[in-house]
């Protein structure tokens, strides 16, 4: 086999220019795909990080029906204190959960006593919220980086629209689950960066203040955001938690809890999927490039060496060995092209990291693109290229192996 490799490589070096041209084409294709995978992957994970670490958490648990409810932030679908305690006990048994943050969410009116607008309020335990969404504090653009009782963090959108500053007194009015209306004065403790989407009107207050506004006598939780120690275990932890919580049934015998990953809660998941689809099509283009170029080279190689094929066949080389010889040539071209492409891609990724390219996403600016290539990416792309190279070489190789020596020797 080694000798066949030696002959194949020598045959490739016989037509240096053509081999270099084909290898370059494959190398450029591999490089392009790898750089795209690295850059789009970096973009995707920065975005996922921004969404999960600043607002959503990795997982969320609601009362079943809460997310699907036609009402926005329904107070009638909160988890009872007992249910929330049960959930906490279960989560403490899962070592992969780093932290969790119970939230009371409600919609209300926000007024500066001159103008009034609507607001979405999150009542949180500050320490738990910061532990679960660590980028939360970095979103506070003005004021103290904390949430104190009697204070409210308001989104930039409202602060600018109603010309409210840190230290101003405002009022939040809300209807509780029984339909009665209550209001409470707050001091603006800080102004928080708005996020893209409905969360752009989200304000934050202490959970005790939220209970007071909603006149809750017992704690009721709208959602529990969860942070994992290792994001790659997202689906495993989600499934495990779901399995454990599905044993808790309501009076109708249906599960009380609804466990969802960030993917089922954020519209950005579709953008992430779109990036994956684009990556897939880019890979398809690479396959087409490799397929066409290798097939072209191998067809030429067979055509130019018909007499030689006749000779080796005449002296007793079995069809299988002739097939192998040409397949190895295709394989070697693929390996060579992939190797050069990998080196180029690693070089370009290194350069991008050196230059530190920044970009904006939604209201976040100055995000640094930090592409990286995993061994898995490199091996996977290389394997595709090499496999396609062998497949592309198969037809010409098969033709060569089936050639009648008498016809091949007669070829001029």
């Amino acid at each position, binding site marked *: 086999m080694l*000798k*066949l490799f030696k*002959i194949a490589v*020598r*045959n490739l*070096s*016989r037509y240096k220019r053509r081999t270099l041209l084909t290898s370059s084409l494959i190398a450029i294709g591999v490089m392009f795909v790898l750089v795209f995978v690295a850059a789009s992957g970096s973009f995707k994970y920065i975005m996922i990080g921004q969404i999960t670490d600043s607002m959503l958490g990795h997982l969320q648990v609601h009362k079943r029906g809460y997310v699907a409810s036609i009402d926005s932030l329904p107070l009638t679908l909160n988890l009872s204190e007992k249910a929330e305690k049960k959930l906490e006990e279960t989560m403490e048994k899962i070592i992969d959960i780093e932290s969790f943050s119970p939230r009371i969410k409600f919609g209300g009116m926000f007024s500066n006593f001159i103008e009034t607008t609507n607001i979405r309020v999150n009542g949180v335990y500050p320490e738990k919220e910061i532990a679960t969404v660590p980028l939360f504090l970095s979103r506070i653009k003005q004021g103290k980086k904390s949430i104190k009782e009697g204070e409210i963090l308001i989104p930039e959108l409202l602060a600018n629209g109603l010309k409210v500053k840190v230290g101003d007194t405002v009022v939040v009015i809300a209807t509780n689950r029984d339909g009665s209306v209550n209001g409470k004065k707050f001091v603006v403790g800080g102004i928080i960066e708005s996020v893209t989407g409905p969360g752009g009107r989200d304000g934050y207050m202490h959970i005790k203040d939220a209970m007071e506004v909603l006149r809750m006598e017992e704690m009721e939780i709208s959602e529990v955001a969860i942070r994992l120690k290792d994001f790659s275990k997202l689906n495993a932890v989600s499934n495990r938690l779901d399995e454990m919580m599905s044993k808790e049934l309501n009076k109708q015998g249906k599960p009380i809890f609804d466990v969802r990953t960030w993917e089922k809660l954020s519209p950005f998941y579709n953008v992430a999927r779109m990036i994956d689809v684009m990556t897939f099509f880019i890979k398809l283009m690479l396959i087409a490039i490799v397929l066409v170029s290798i097939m072209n080279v191998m067809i030429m190689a067979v055509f130019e060496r018909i*007499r*030689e094929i*006749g*000779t*080796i*066949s*005449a*002296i*007793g*080389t*079995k*069809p*299988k*060995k002739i097939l192998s010889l040409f397949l190895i040539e295709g394989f070697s071209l693929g390996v060579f092209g992939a190797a050069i492409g990998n080196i180029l891609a690693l070089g370009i990724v290194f350069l991008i990291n050196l230059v530190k390219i920044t970009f904006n996403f939604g209201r976040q600016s100055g995000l640094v693109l930090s592409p990286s290539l995993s061994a898995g990416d490199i091996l996977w792309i290389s394997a595709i290229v090499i496999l396609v190279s062998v497949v592309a070489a198969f037809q010409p190789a098969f033709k060569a192996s*089936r050639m*009648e*020596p*008498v016809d091949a*020797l007669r070829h001029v």
Partner: protein
Amino acid sequence: MSLVNAENLTKVYTMGEIEVKALQSVSFEIEPASFISFIGPSGSGKTTLLNLIGCLDKPTSGTLKVAEVNTSELTHKEAAAFRGKNLGFIFQDFNLIPVLTVYENVEYPLLIVQNVPSEERKTRVISLLKTVGMTDQKDKYPDQISGGQKQRVAVARALVTNPRLVLADEPTANLDSKTAFMVIDIMRQMKEEFGVTFIFSTHDPKIVSEVETVYTLQDGMLIGRAQGKGGRYA
């Protein structure tokens, strides 16, 4: 027991609607360790006959046995295995593999076709290169040696597998007289030493004067058989 036995061998080529009879009812027997030549003008069927004997092609009708094997019954794969084991080929244009050195060209059939162990391979290749006088050129590529040298390498390649029969199609056509005689001498020496049968297709009088038996072909028919001896064509 004859090495080659042909009975009523016929080969017809179809070119469009025209049928060309390349060989017509040719019958002959060749004994082991013979030095034979088929002669005749161009188109007489010499190369076709050699192709049939060499299992490179199949007869349209008739029987052909080589080393007691009915070659027309062999599949593509079996024919390749049979050639690798029993036959050696020498071509008019030498047909050396350009990417292999002289040594590697001779080694090729042992390595790729017969899977002979490394040590034995080396011994046989070196021995044959010595016999054909190409030891000092063993690391050169075919494009670095002369036509005569190429044909000597081709002879070594044909003989390295210890074949029972070597088929040589116009082996001296591209060589000058001196080199042609040298190559014929080597082949005769191999025949004497190892008992290999050589069958030539040629119209080169140099070969004709050296062979033991001369078969004459004309228009695809065998029209004569004569003894040739020590340069005297009878």
